């Protein structure tokens, strides 16, 4: 699509390099009148969920709402953690996310390199087939994939989450585009020196591709971490559930215990939020580079 015109790896996104267009006669920019309410609207849902998560059940069930709780009940978090196997949820999500990141980095980069540089019988046909797969929405493959995974005996297991998502077409396209942009002379020189195709790939191409590999890793991690529909279809027991499905199960168990529900919800968002705050630049660059969220 139009992604390649938006941002390229050789032109990193620098949000600080913006023009200074402040009008000289104002003590502050009038844009604040727009941005302050906007920031409030964007942050309010999260702030309110944190506040509710620290209230007692009776404080949460009151109208008008208690905006500032009398005391901070961190015990809600303990209660939420103990009411469902949140430890399992986190662990399963980590396994799911890390395994699919590893699988995509390995399998996509191998395939992408072949499509970018090697001439082999059937490569064009294969590439067209991949393009078709990229265009088909996930819902089309949902039911047969469920049957295949069931046939493999992987229903209600973390393996069933991982295996169908080990290699995505998106990653192949992303990496192929990058590999094609690399100067071919380095690889040719290494070939003349007697390096094998695999050697060239491992020792020359991969080290040059760290930015794009990081991008794929971040995007895939976000996809797997936030994935909901596929786990909903194949996972039935809480012990095998990843975080988002677990959160939904938790919601079903505490329909109107809003303080507990908010504690669980806030808790479930902390790891991703923490990673985002520490690596904000990387996240934003990855999203800008690929233009894809989920």
């Amino acid at each position, binding site marked *: 699509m139009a992604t390649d015109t938006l941002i390229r790896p050789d032109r990193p996104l620098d949000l600080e390099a913006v023009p200074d267009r402040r009008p000289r006669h104002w003590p502050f920019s009038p844009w604040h009148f727009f941005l302050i309410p906007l920031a409030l609207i964007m942050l309010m849902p999260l702030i309110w969920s944190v506040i509710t998560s620290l209230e007692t059940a009776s404080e949460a069930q009151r109208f008008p709402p208690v905006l500032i709780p009398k005391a901070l009940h961190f015990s809600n978090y303990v209660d939420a953690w103990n009411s469902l196997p949140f430890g399992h949820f986190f662990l399963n999500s980590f396994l799911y996310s890390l395994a699919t990141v590893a699988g995509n980095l390995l399998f996509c980069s191998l395939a992408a390199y072949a499509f970018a540089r090697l001439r082999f019988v059937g490569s064009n046909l*294969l590439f067209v*087939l991949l393009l078709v797969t990229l265009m088909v929405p996930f819902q089309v493959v949902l039911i047969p994939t469920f049957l295949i995974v069931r046939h493999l005996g992987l229903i209600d297991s973390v393996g069933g989450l991982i295996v169908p998502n080990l290699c995505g077409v998106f990653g192949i396209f992303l990496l192929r585009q990058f590999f094609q942009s690399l100067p071919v002379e380095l690889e040719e020189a290494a070939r003349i020196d007697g390096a094998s195709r695999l050697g060239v790939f491992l020792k020359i191409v991969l080290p040059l591709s760290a930015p794009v590999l990081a991008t794929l890793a971040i995007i895939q991690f976000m996809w797997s971490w936030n994935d909901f529909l596929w786990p909903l279809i194949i996972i039935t027991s809480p012990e095998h559930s990843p975080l988002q499905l677990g959160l939904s199960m938790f919601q079903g168990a505490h329909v109107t215990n809003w303080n507990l529900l908010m504690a669980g919800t806030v808790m479930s968002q902390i790891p991703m939020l923490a990673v985002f705050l520490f690596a904000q630049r990387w996240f934003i660059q990855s999203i800008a580079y690929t*233009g894809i969220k989920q």
Partner: protein
Amino acid sequence: MSLAPDSRARRALGSDHVAGWMFVAPAVVLIGVFGLVPIAWSAIMSFQANDLVSAPTWVGLANYQALAKDPAFMASVRHTLVYAALFVPLSVAGSLLVAWALNRKLRGVRFYRLAVFVPVVTSTVATGIIFLWLLDPVFGLVNYALSLVGLPEQGFLQDPNQALLCIVAMTVWGWLGFDVIIYLAALQGIPQELMEAAQIDGAGKWSSFLHVVLPFLRPATLFLVVWSTISALQLFDEIYVTTRGGPLGATTVIVFYLYQQAFQLFNAGYGAAIAYVLFLAILLITIIQLKVGGQRVYGKS
């Protein structure tokens, strides 16, 4: 001896075939088994009666004919289209405005950006639960805010006339930052000389925005319109978490109807037919958008 370079070249070419296939083999197996086979299987399944347990039976076009006459499916199509028609323009135009505001040196701009980006990493399930709480008709914060300015309390997600609008608001909140990032990246690509030249030519702020910035942003806009439409037509998570298609079916969108048919009522053949109709609709709408958007790009340049 004269044959040596030739045979070496041929050997190199030959090893490309082997190496090429070895490089793509894992991807081909995985994408074949979990991509291509399901695509074909799904097509076959849409011509079958299939309850996911017993042996499927061939029913020809019966699933598609039933779909055309199914009022619940037609309603789900309507809901999906209404949702997309609101979500896509609101999120794309809104994010353009926000990106334009954020693309400048400003006190606190890092904080503003953070506020806009944070919902992007909030999961769809968490977003749904949080908005369910905010929009709770009895204890919700939004109804409290309305009561402060003297407005009557609303049913929000429990009111069939408002539920879909609430889903729009919720998803715009969740997606805005994503669109803003794309627009910020595109805005950074506008050469400063271009803006200065427009100002020297006497173009006002509004005029240079219309005639310099907007055309320059057209690829980003086209991408966002196409991408937002595709994801709007596939809406599911937020519906499952908040309304489960209710109240009175008011938020039953296509993918939620598919999920109900295939995995709750075990009409997998019917579900596969829905999936293919969705696929063709997405394909058609995307092609139209790319045609229209693409033409405009060429027309301007």
